[in-house]
């Protein structure tokens, strides 16, 4: 990035400017080193009482194929796919119509969308708990309207968990698609209409293909974190289901099995890389829809 202009100017050798050293040092210290640590631990044996021994083992990776762990992987994958599908279903129309407004209205809508995310996500999830709990306003309203005889069990089930996941990750989908739709050349769609395409046909044959990069970027941005989020299933799902994130947390905090926690983290990392690899293959993009 910094090398090119230098090379063009005076044909000098590629030099890394001292101003970027802090960034490299930072990355090495706080990203690369911890990762090396995690990888190392994943090959070690758990100590009897506490911590790890220095004995090498592949056992942790072999136990990844335990039926319980495989089920957790499956369930997490299912939740992540459903979250991605739901956010896409809600996010696409939202982004599409937002992009059709005048620039002033557009940026206001995006501001409204982003504003809640300045507040800590745990607080916002607790807000959902207050709304949906047995003696909360939603149940109160349903009972006043005669739609329910007794408080409905709105919380601590799969539905509440999905609500939380979609709520937390929807903005990533909307902003990605919005970026694509905003850059659309609307005259192309007008041309399709002039040539006799129905609005629906113009939408599916012209608009959608042109916004694929945004859609795929949004899917990656939603799918990847939804594999790892644990507090949503804990708070809104009542901690009754086990996702990959919860499993890692359990291994570290309750079972005190650091090597297994590390192994699961590595497995999740590899899984994520595979997913991003597929994304690159499909779209031919080298970056995540502009998010590098």
């Amino acid at each position, binding site marked *: 990035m910094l090398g090119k202009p230098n090379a063009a100017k005076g044909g000098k050798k590629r030099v890394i400017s001292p*101003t970027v050293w802090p960034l490299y040092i930072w990355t090495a210290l706080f990203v690369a080193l911890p990762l090396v640590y995690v990888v190392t631990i994943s090959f070690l044996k*758990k100590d*009897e*009482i*506490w*911590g790890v021994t220095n004995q090498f083992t592949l056992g942790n990776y072999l136990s990844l194929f*335990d039926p*319980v*762990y495989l*089920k*957790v992987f499956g*369930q997490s994958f299912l939740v992540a796919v459903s979250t991605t599908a739901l956010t896409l279903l809600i996010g696409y129309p939202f982004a599409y119509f937002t992009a059709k407004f005048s620039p002033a209205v557009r940026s206001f809508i995006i501001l409204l969308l982003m504003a809640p995310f300045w507040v800590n996500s745990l607080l916002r999830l607790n807000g959902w708990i207050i709304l949906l*709990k*047995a*003696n*909360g306003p939603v149940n109160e309203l349903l009972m006043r309207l005669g739609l329910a005889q007794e*408080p409905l*069990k709105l*919380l*601590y089930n799969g539905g509440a968990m999905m609500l939380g996941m979609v709520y937390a990750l929807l903005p990533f989908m909307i902003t990605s698609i919005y970026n694509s739709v905003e850059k659309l050349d609307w005259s192309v769609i007008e041309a399709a209409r002039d040539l006799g395409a129905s609005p629906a046909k113009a939408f599916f044959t012209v608009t959608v293909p042109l916004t694929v990069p945004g859609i795929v970027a949004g899917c990656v941005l939603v799918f990847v974190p939804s594999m790892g989020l644990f507090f949503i299933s*804990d708070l809104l799902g*009542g*901690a*009754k*289901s*086990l996702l990959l994130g*919860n*499993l890692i947390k*359990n*291994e*570290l*905090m*309750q*079972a*005190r*099995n650091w090597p297994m926690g590390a192994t699961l983290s590595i497995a999740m990392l590899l899984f994520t890389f595979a997913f991003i690899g597929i994304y690159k293959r499909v779209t031919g993009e080298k970056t995540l829809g502009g998010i590098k």
Partner: protein
Amino acid sequence: MKKTVVRLLALVMVLSLALLGAGCSSSNKKGELVIFSWADYIDPDLLKEFTASTGIEINYNYFNSEEEMLSKLEAVDGGEYDIVIASDYIINIARKENLLKEIDKSKVPNYENLNEDYLNQYYDPEGKYTIPYVAGTPLIVYDPSRVTCQITGYGSLWDESLKDQIVVMDHMRNVIGFTLKSMGYSLNEQDPEVIAKAGEKLLALKPNIRALDGDTPHEKLISGECTVGYIFTSQVSAVLSERPDFKVVYPEEGMGFGIDSLFMPANAPHEDAALQFMNFLCDPEISARASVFTQYINCNKAATQYLPEEFLNNQAVNIPADILGDIEFMQDISSEATEQMNEIWNTFKQS
């Protein structure tokens, strides 16, 4: 121009770092005490009073789990912190890892106020390293207006009428522990066959579980989300203060028990301040106030006269000795047993 701005920014950064450093060292001079415990586990008023009477500034750091605490303590080789308050089982591990420092009792004269029942327990058999802070036992509470079955102990939680009604703590050892107790075994059972049987029994409990929550189960009971809970002492108090109509059950199969104690890490930097603080918390009146604040069982025999009536009448924190009966500490078990329980726990949550 651009270069000037960059230089200016660099200068600001260096200056702010220098200020940060100065801020740290200046508080070191006056005498400092670094406490490490759960958030909000000591009454802030007590901390202020301690600072007012001794001039020692308190720096309160908190952890979210005891495993986190021990990892940090190990990372700093038992330094940095002067006082840690944590549970018996983790103190036992810290002792085996040589992370505790012996207490010079001559500097803690109030030690003699402590109730002998809470001293010299398994995690500190010679009473050299720890001072009990508060104690507790998880209990069952339920809403009698909505529960139709008789609840007498852990076994009652499997009753079919409680479908999707119960909140229990999200804690592997406790939940598998009460399952073992309901079958007449110890919390610390290590026989693989028995643990496997308990695992099968635990799976049958899943339909009755509305939520697993160790942090705010009382809120789920108060709001009416759940009708039965197996929760920690202070949470039982919280439920009773909002919903006095709830009933407390002392499980007939026997109760688990835990003591949270103060200890000094092996390389505590301010030992004198730590000893003064230990003595302060063993003062009868202060100890009484600490128990009222935390809503846990008081471990100071001289403090009883300072405990308010409301506290003494609270079934969660004042359990008559004959009813308390044969209590059992949850102790560390073998690596194999932990692994087996972890597999059971994962299956239980995943199901």
